[in-house]
Structures are given as structure tokens and as C-alpha cells.
């Protein structure tokens, strides 16, 4: 009691709803879809946040790094983005878009907030980077998963196969499908003349 008094008089106040909050966070954990992950995050499950970071952390970091050109700033943005997910997960509405789209847009916005320079140039660079990130994120989940491990983590097909639980041949096939699905990124852009 004495130790409480020493600090408490100056610093403390009641925390009336601690018990209520404490009892409200034991949600079941099955889901593997993004939306289910966000529901689990909203329920206070740290493992779900970890899973979301494993799934999209590299993409978010890469996007932030591209826009900011600075590793330290990109890391700050990524931390901020995932912390925002933690705080705002309960506001997520699946009808308004995919989780990864939300994440990419949030990353872009946070990065742009840090940027200085010619606004049109910043906007153009951000739009291009966001477009490529979304092309990656829009791949079917099995293709996205193997591409993420091969592209960002640099893992060979055999190791990717171990991670995702399919034969190496299936990994190679999915990588082919993924790159075929993103062919338009490499095609020359049509010039739109006004």
C-alpha cells in the first residue's frame, strides 16, 4: 500500500473498464483469409497481427522504400501502418475493399506524408508504385504467396515448396502464372495525347 501511495497520489486514477476489456479478447483463431485475420486482430490477437505482417510486411516495406528511398523512414512507415491496423482493425469493412488494398493505400499515404518535393511528381511516383504493388497483391493468393517468398525473400523453389506445402513443380508453375499475370507491367505504356 505504501508503494502505491508514493506514486499513486501524483499519477494514478481509476481504470474502471480494465476487467471488461480483459475478458473480451479470447476469439477463436482458425481463419486464413485476410478479412478473418483482421477480425482476429480486432479481437486483440497478437498472432494474427504477426501473420498479417508475415504476409504483407515485405510488400509494404518495399513500397515504402521505393517511395521514400530511405530504409529508416520506410521502417518507420511500416511500423506505423501495422500499428494502425492494430488500432483500427475493428473499423475494417470487407464491403469497402480488400485488406491488402487498404494496407497498400495506407502505406502509400503514410509514405507520401513524409515526402517533400514537387507535388505532381510525388503524386505520379506514388501512383505508379501503388499500381505495381496492387498488381502483385491482386494475384490469386497461391500465386502471391510463392511470388512473395521467391521475389522478396529470394527463396529457391524447393524452399518455397516447403513453406507452402506443395511440390517444387507446383511452385514453379505458380511462379509462371504469376509472372504471366503481371505481363502488362512490362508492356510499353500507350501514350495518351491530348
Amino acid at each position: 500500500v505504501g508503494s502505491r501511495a508514493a506514486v499513486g497520489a501524483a499519477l494514478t486514477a481509476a481504470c474502471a473498464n480494465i476487467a471488461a476489456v480483459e475478458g473480451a479478447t479470447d476469439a477463436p483463431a482458425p481463419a486464413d483469409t485476410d478479412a478473418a485475420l483482421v477480425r482476429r486482430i480486432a479481437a486483440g490477437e497478437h498472432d494474427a497481427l504477426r501473420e498479417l505482417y508475415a504476409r504483407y510486411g515485405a510488400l509494404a516495406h518495399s513500397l515504402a522504400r521505393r517511395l521514400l528511398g530511405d530504409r529508416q523512414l520506410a521502417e518507420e512507415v511500416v511500423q506505423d501502418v501495422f500499428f494502425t491496423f492494430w488500432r483500427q482493425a475493428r473499423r475494417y469493412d470487407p464491403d469497402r475493399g480488400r485488406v491488402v488494398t487498404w494496407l497498400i493505400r495506407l502505406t502509400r499515404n503514410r509514405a507520401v506524408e513524409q515526402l517533400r518535393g514537387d507535388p505532381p511528381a510525388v503524386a505520379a511516383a506514388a501512383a505508379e508504385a501503388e499500381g505495381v504493388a496492387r498488381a502483385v497483391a491482386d494475384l490469386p493468393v497461391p500465386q502471391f504467396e510463392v511470388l512473395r517468398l521467391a521475389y522478396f525473400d529470394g527463396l529457391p523453389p524447393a524452399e518455397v515448396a516447403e513453406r507452402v506445402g506443395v511440390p517444387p513443380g507446383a511452385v514453379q508453375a505458380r511462379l509462371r502464372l504469376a509472372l504471366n499475370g503481371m505481363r502488362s507491367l512490362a508492356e510499353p505504356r500507350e501514350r495518351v495525347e491530348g
Partner: protein
Amino acid sequence: VSAFDTRQALAAHALGVLPDDEAREVEERASEDRDLARELDRYRATVRALERVLPREPAPAHLFEAGRKVPRAWSLPSVRPRHLAVVAGVAVLVAALGVVVLRGGGPEPDARAELIPASGGRVRGEALLFDAGRDDARLVVRLRNVPAPEPEHHYQVWVLRVGTGTPEPVGVFSARGEFEGEFSLPGRGRYAALDVSIEEDGGEPEHSGRSLAAGTFT
């Protein structure tokens, strides 16, 4: 490697992730087969387009690795409000990844404080002070029965030096259940007490007046 396998391996080769022997074999086959070569070129163009925009780097695991400290600059009272959320983000993710900063087998602390609920609740724990006489003084906080923070709130650790009436912030965290974290202290000094407050995300860098737990160093 059959012709079919070679074709399947083209994308992995364009991504540069095939083992050397398989990569050599794909190159040889592609040099003899125009269709394969064209397909490989197409994949390489796509990979180049990706690389031009998205640097190929894994997610930075070191941000959340065990033992990572909250950077000192973010722990000082002069922390900018914008960064408060970032600091909290670090702490949330540190907690989320189950990070535990243990000093098992390490030196004895210079001081210890039993942490008890400031106003109800079941939270209990202790705070250990290391190297209090040095500029790199550190604080280890261990808590159990930590309630999940209220929405858009986090916890902040404060210390009170002997002879001062102003609590100094040393770091933030978010956790539920058990928490253990290490924080950098503002510097050398005689620390009298510690308090864990409940703070609103992005709020003012001042004590909110609401405490989760507190204790005095002995």
C-alpha cells in the same frame, strides 16, 4: 530436366532463384529453343518492371526481433506526438511477436520495484533497474494479468527520480496477459518510483492521470 520442366522453371530462373546447376541447364535449353528464349525474355522483362518499382528485400524482421529496445530518442520527454504512435507501434508489434527481453543469468539489478495495481485490477509484476549509475541505465518491466488496452490506447512507462516531482516517460507498449520489455532510461540518477499509465494513441506527451500499475524502487 525435361522440356516441360524447363518451361516450368523459366519463371523461377527469371526471378533468379533457381539453384546454379538448374539455372545453367535452363540457359542451355533456352539457347537452343527460340520459344523458350522468348518466354524467358518475357518473364525477365516483367521481373525488371517489378524491380524498378519494388525493391527486392524481405520484410525487416529486425524491427521486431527479440531484445530490440525502444530507441532512446523515442523514449525521451521531447518525443514528438507524431512519433508517439510509431513508438507505440513498435511496442505493439514487439509484444505481438511474443518478444521477451530476458536477462536470465545476467547481473543483479541495482534496484527492484514491486508493481501493483494502481486502482483495482489483477495486474502484478516487477521492475528491475540496471546500471542506474551510468548514462545507459536500463529498466526491465515484467507484468502479468495485463488487460488488453482499451481501443486506441496503449500503455506508457514512467519513472520518477529522487527529488523531482515530474514523471519522465521511458517507453510505451501494448500487451495482454504477460509482458516483459526493456527500456532505456533517461540517464543516470536515483530512481524512486515507476508508473505504467494508460494513454490515448497519438495523445499529448504527458501523463494522462490514469495508471495501470505502480511501484517504488528499493
